[in-house]
């Protein structure tokens, strides 16, 4: 876009905001206006709630909302993965039925990809979808599903053909979560939280028009969803730490929405090791005077700051339009090392108190939560092992692991008997 067009567009937006923004509106009402005007998703097509603006222009639009003190659409969570997937691979029926309520936030979505038997190996899914009469009938079990218990719709990856190689036998569906064949049970973690669900699908039904793309195209569609997942995780973080609200009904509703959406993630900072608590705790317990513990604190701070600066280097490179280099891919691995070391250091700093959980435990139990949450840092979102495979193969160009499961019918591949 030329600078001139930019200026005109932003002026138009300012006018529109001046005419329409009112903090006493309801959240859904305001978002409906954003959907209709296209200002909520300016890079989407005009016919689907957007304004056909280039993607790079969206940050400028958002900045204008900020300056104005107006709320923008919350571009977070599974529903945005759904939107991206539907825009790219869905039918007009899907776009018509789902996109608007994704923008307004009225529908809750969940992602039904992982299974107990295929953690790192998503394409090994065994949940079956079979056409019976004029409907797809789905049976199987999904896991690590956030919000399944309150979701309206689920993005489902299921196997429709076992006689072709694994990636070729998958199909992609939009599943009505509020039907009898869908049961969501909370999945309790070792830290006591239950942020995820297991979803049992027993003769759950999907109308043929709710299939996304053709049968056998499921892996391809899922790849689109997954590509947006990492980005969504980042925006989730910034959503959770969103700034001070203004005064008015809409801010209250937005805060309430954030609280609800963030509740399952309350332990995520602990999972990452809470490096921020190390120094204050060391002063509190007197461990700061112990030269042995000081060494471990230093090790942790060195690793943590170096990882932060590595991420900063990656961002700087990106902003200068350079290829990002290896720094980006290394972040996940670094953060799992930091979490593990942080748990070690917190243990040393707390000494015998490291045994205590609950409100009497150090920092109201936060230290205990670190000590029983950090193992998730090296598992969730791709295990350390998967990260190292990716770094060695994609960043360092080393040979790929020989695969034994890609060139023969799925039914012949050895599969899990345990989960």
């Amino acid at each position, binding site marked *: 876009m030329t600078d001139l067009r930019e200026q005109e567009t932003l002026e138009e937006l300012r006018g529109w905001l001046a005419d329409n923004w009112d903090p006493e509106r309801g959240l859904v009402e305001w978002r409906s206006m954003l959907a209709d005007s296209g200002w909520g998703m300016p890079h989407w097509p005009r016919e689907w709630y957007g304004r056909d603006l280039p993607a790079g222009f969206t940050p400028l639009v958002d900045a204008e909302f900020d300056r104005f003190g107006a709320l923008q659409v919350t571009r977070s969570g599974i529903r945005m993965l759904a939107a991206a997937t539907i825009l790219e691979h869905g039918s007009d029926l899907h776009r018509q039925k789902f996109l608007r309520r994704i923008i307004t936030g009225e529908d809750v979505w969940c992602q039904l990809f*992982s299974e*107990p*038997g*295929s*953690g*790192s*190996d998503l394409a*090994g899914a065994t949940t079956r979808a079979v056409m019976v009469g004029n409907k797809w009938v789905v049976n199987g079990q999904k*896991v*690590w599903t956030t919000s399944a218990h309150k979701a309206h719709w689920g993005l489902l990856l299921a196997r429709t053909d076992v006689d072709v190689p*694994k990636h070729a036998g998958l199909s992609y569906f939009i599943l009505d979560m509020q039907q009898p064949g869908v049961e969501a049970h909370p*999945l*309790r*973690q*070792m830290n*006591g939280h239950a942020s995820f669900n297991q979803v049992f699908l027993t003769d759950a039904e999907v109308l043929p028009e709710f299939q996304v793309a053709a049968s056998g195209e499921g892996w391809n569609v899922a790849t689109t969803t997954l590509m947006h997942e990492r980005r969504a995780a980042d925006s989730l973080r910034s959503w959770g730490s969103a700034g001070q609200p203004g005064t008015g009904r809409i801010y209250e509703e937005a805060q309430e929405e954030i609280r609800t959406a963030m509740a399952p993630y309350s332990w995520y900072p602990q999972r990452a090791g809470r490096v921020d608590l190390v120094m204050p705790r060391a002063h509190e317990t007197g461990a700061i005077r112990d030269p*042995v*513990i000081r060494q471990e604190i230093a090790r942790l701070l060195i690793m943590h700051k170096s990882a932060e600066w590595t991420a900063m280097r990656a961002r700087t490179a990106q902003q200068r339009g350079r290829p990002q280099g290896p720094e980006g891919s290394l972040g996940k691995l670094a953060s799992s090392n930091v979490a*593990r070391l942080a748990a070690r250091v917190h*243990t*040393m700093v*707390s*000494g*015998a*108190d*490291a*045994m*205590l*959980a*609950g409100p*009497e*435990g150090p920092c109201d139990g936060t230290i*205990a939560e670190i*000590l*029983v949450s950090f*193992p*998730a840092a*090296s*598992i*969730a979102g791709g*295990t*350390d*092992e998967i990260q*190292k495979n990716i770094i060695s193969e994609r960043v360092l160009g080393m040979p790929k*692991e020989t*695969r*034994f*499961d890609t060139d023969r019918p799925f039914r012949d*591949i*050895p*599969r*899990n*008997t*345990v*989960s």
Partner: protein
Amino acid sequence: MKFGFSEEQEAFRDVLRRYFEDRSPTTEVRRLMATDQGWEREGWNRMNSELGLAAIAIPEAYGGQGFGLAEQCIALEEMGRALVCSPYFATAVLAASAIELAGSEQQKLALLPGIASGETVATLAFCEDGGSWDVKGVALEARGDGTLHGTKSYVLDGQAADLVVVLARAPGTTGTDGLSLHLVRGDAPGLERRALQSIDETRRIARLAFDGVEAEPLPGATAPVMERVLARAAICLANEMVGGAERLRADALDYVGMRMQFGRSIASFQVTKHKAADMLLDVELARSAAYYAAAAHDEADDGVVALASLAKAGAGEAYMQTAIHAVQMHGGIGFTWDNDTHLWFKRAKVSEVFLGTSAEHRERLVAYWRD
């Protein structure tokens, strides 16, 4: 010194392993850890009547079986392996050692038979709010009138114990001077007991407040005696930890052997194989140190205090490392409540600091060995 187990000892271990496999599967551990006390008299009594476990290391003269620490450590290793919920460590390790090493003949005759039979559940109240297992950190006072004033914390099974052996000091003393041990009934007036919530739900700890509690002194409590009590406890804990680490290691190995991803067993990935080899080495080294320390204790080796610290520090690192690897080898499943790995993971974490952190025991080791 050569060391290794005799046929009889191996047979004893086999009996215990089968017993605990039968009596203490993880379903039972999960049931007990959800109870208020964390264990039940019934199972505890059965364990003692059928196997006489609390009696193992207590001299025959006091109603025990008169075996050595080596035999007791076999039992502890198996209990650590099965994560048995019982007041064994508090009673048969901590309290029994304190009474045996510091009690008068009369006290031993009066108290040890009850401990040996399992009838008396006892514990040792050693460290205080600072969390230090160094006698220098003791502040609880035993006054001239025979009453105790102060608090003890992290007391194993402190809330359930019938009998509490309490480490105290004479008013005005510091360091290693003026130490004394005292017997207090669990229901003594002036004793307030409060459960602390531990990360490890299979083993309970409590905070005990003594407000002028009348107590009976044990005559032999000095700093060197307490050092021996702690050394014995550290050796026992090290063996228990080795049992837990071995269980985690073996279970993780079984799991990766059964688990398929990408059309092949996870156990076939070289990285998994090498991790399994490292885990075996970690556990075997810790095991050797734990066994050696127990054998040295029974040979009345002068260096046993140093060896106890060596074994405790070694087992502490190995157990936690094994637990971290074990969760990782299970992947997402290993982070769930329903998977059993976290039960040992949490025991590993708590054992790492109980009786002193690994760093503290390393420091002690060098202090003993520096010449």
